[in-house]
C-alpha cells in the first residue's frame, strides 16, 4: 500500500464524518457532503500545511470545511443542474430527530455555534478562533440559539460553563 493511499485512508477515517456533519449543518443537506469532503481532504493531502498536533490539524480541517461550505453556498444558486443520466452517489440520510430538525431550522450562525459547542465540544474562545467571530458574538449566537430551541422544544434554559 502506497504512503499516499494510507494517508488518504487515515484522513477519510478521521475527518470524513466530521466534514459531513459540518456540511450538513451549513448546507442543510447531505447531498454535497462528499464533494466538500473531497475538496477539504485533497487540500490537506496536497497542501504545504505543517501541523504541530492532531488538534491543530483538526482545527485546520474544521476551518477549511467551513470555508468550503460557504463557497458551496455562494456557488449554489449559480450551479448548473447535473447532466441527465449521470448517477450521483447516494447521500447519507440524516437521522429522524425532533431536536436535530429544530436545530436545522435555526439561522446558520446559530447552527454553526451549536454544532461546534455541543457536538465538537469546542469552547467559545476556540469557536471564535475557528470562525473568526468575536467571543461575544459566539456567546450571543449560542444563547439566542438555545432560547429559540427552548421555544420550539420546551424545557428549562441550560447554560453550560463558558457559554453565558
Amino acid at each position, binding site marked *: 500500500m502506497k504512503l499516499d493511499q494510507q494517508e488518504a485512508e487515515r484522513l477519510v477515517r478521521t475527518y*470524513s464524518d466530521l466534514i459531513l456533519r459540518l456540511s450538513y449543518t451549513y448546507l442543510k443537506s447531505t447531498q454535497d457532503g462528499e464533494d466538500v469532503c*473531497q475538496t477539504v481532504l485533497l487540500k490537506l493531502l496536497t497542501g504545504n500545511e505543517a501541523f504541530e498536533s492532531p*488538534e491543530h490539524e483538526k*482545527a485546520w480541517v474544521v476551518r477549511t470545511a467551513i470555508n468550503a461550505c460557504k463557497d458551496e453556498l455562494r456557488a449554489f444558486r449559480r450551479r448548473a443542474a447535473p447532466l441527465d443520466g449521470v448517477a450521483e*452517489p447516494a447521500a447519507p440520510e440524516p*437521522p429522524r430527530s425532533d*431536536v436535530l430538525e429544530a436545530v436545522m431550522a435555526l439561522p446558520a450562525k446559530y447552527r454553526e455555534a451549536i454544532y461546534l459547542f455541543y*457536538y465538537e465540544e469546542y469552547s467559545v474562545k476556540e469557536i471564535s478562533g475557528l470562525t473568526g467571530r468575536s467571543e461575544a458574538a459566539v456567546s450571543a449566537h449560542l444563547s439566542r440559539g438555545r432560547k429559540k430551541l427552548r421555544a420550539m422544544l420546551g424545557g428549562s434554559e441550560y447554560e453550560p460553563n463558558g457559554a453565558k
Partner: protein
Amino acid sequence: MNQMERNEREYQQAMDALRFSGEAKARMAASLTTEREERPVKAKRFRPLRTGLLAACMCLALVGTAFAAVYQLTVQISSDEEHVRYIVYGEAVKHPLEDYSPEMQADYAAFDRSKGGILPGRKFDGWDGAKAYLGDNIPCVWRNTDDVVWDGEYRVQMIPDLTWDTNDLQYAHFYNNALLDCGMSCETMIYIYGPRHTYDQLYGMGQFLGAEYRLLEDYAMANGCVAKIILESGAEDWPTQYSIGIFMKEGMLYKVSLYGGAAGQFTDEEMVTQLCQVLDSFY
C-alpha cells in the same frame, strides 16, 4: 436530567448517526489517492523571485520612482503543462506589527502558533470597525458602497512568518464580500505587507489548464491610482467568469474581484465596465 440536557443528548446522538457508509469512505479514499497522484503538491502562492525576474522588476521600479508616487505593478501571466497563473509584482510599503492598533497587536501577541489553531484576526459588521482595528497608521481606504445590495463579512486577518523561522508578522489582509445590484458578487482584499515580505512578488493565483487569464489595458481610476485589469474565464467543465482589478495605494495592494457566475451571463464588456465602476468608487 432536565429537558435541555435531554435535547443536548438527542442532538449528539442524531449527529453521531450522521456518517458516511463504509462504501462511501472507500470510494473517497480511492478518489483522493487518484487525484493526489494526478495533481502535484501545490506550491505556496508566494515564492522567492527568480534572479532574472528580480532584476527586471527592479528596473521597472526604478523607472517608476523617477516620476511620482504612482505605484508600479507588473502582472505576468504564464502557464505550464498543467496550470495557468498570474503573478503580481511590485514594491510594497512595509508595516511592522507596531504600526497596527494596540488591539490588533494584542491579538497577535496572544496567538501561540506552537499550540496550533487558527490565525489571529477578527470579523466586523462594517468597514469602520475593521479600519479602527487596523489602526490610524495603516492608511488603507474603502469605497462608496451604494451599489451593494447584500454585505458580507468584513474580516482582518494576520499571517505570521511563512517560513516559520520567527514569530514576526508576514502580512495582514482585509477581506470583504458583497453582492452588487447588477447581480455580480464582489470580493475585495487589501494586503498590507510586513518587513518579512522581502520579495516583490505580491500576489499570485492559478488554475488548472483550460481556464484563461487575459490582461487588459490599465485603467486610470478616479482616485488617481492605476489598476491592472484581468479577465478570468473558467475551464470548460466549470465555465465561470471573473473580472479582476488590482491596484496599489499608499503601498498596499488592493484586489477587487467581480464574479459574474456561469460564463455567458454577462459579456466581457459588462464585466469590465462594472469593475471599473467599483474601482472608481474607492476613495
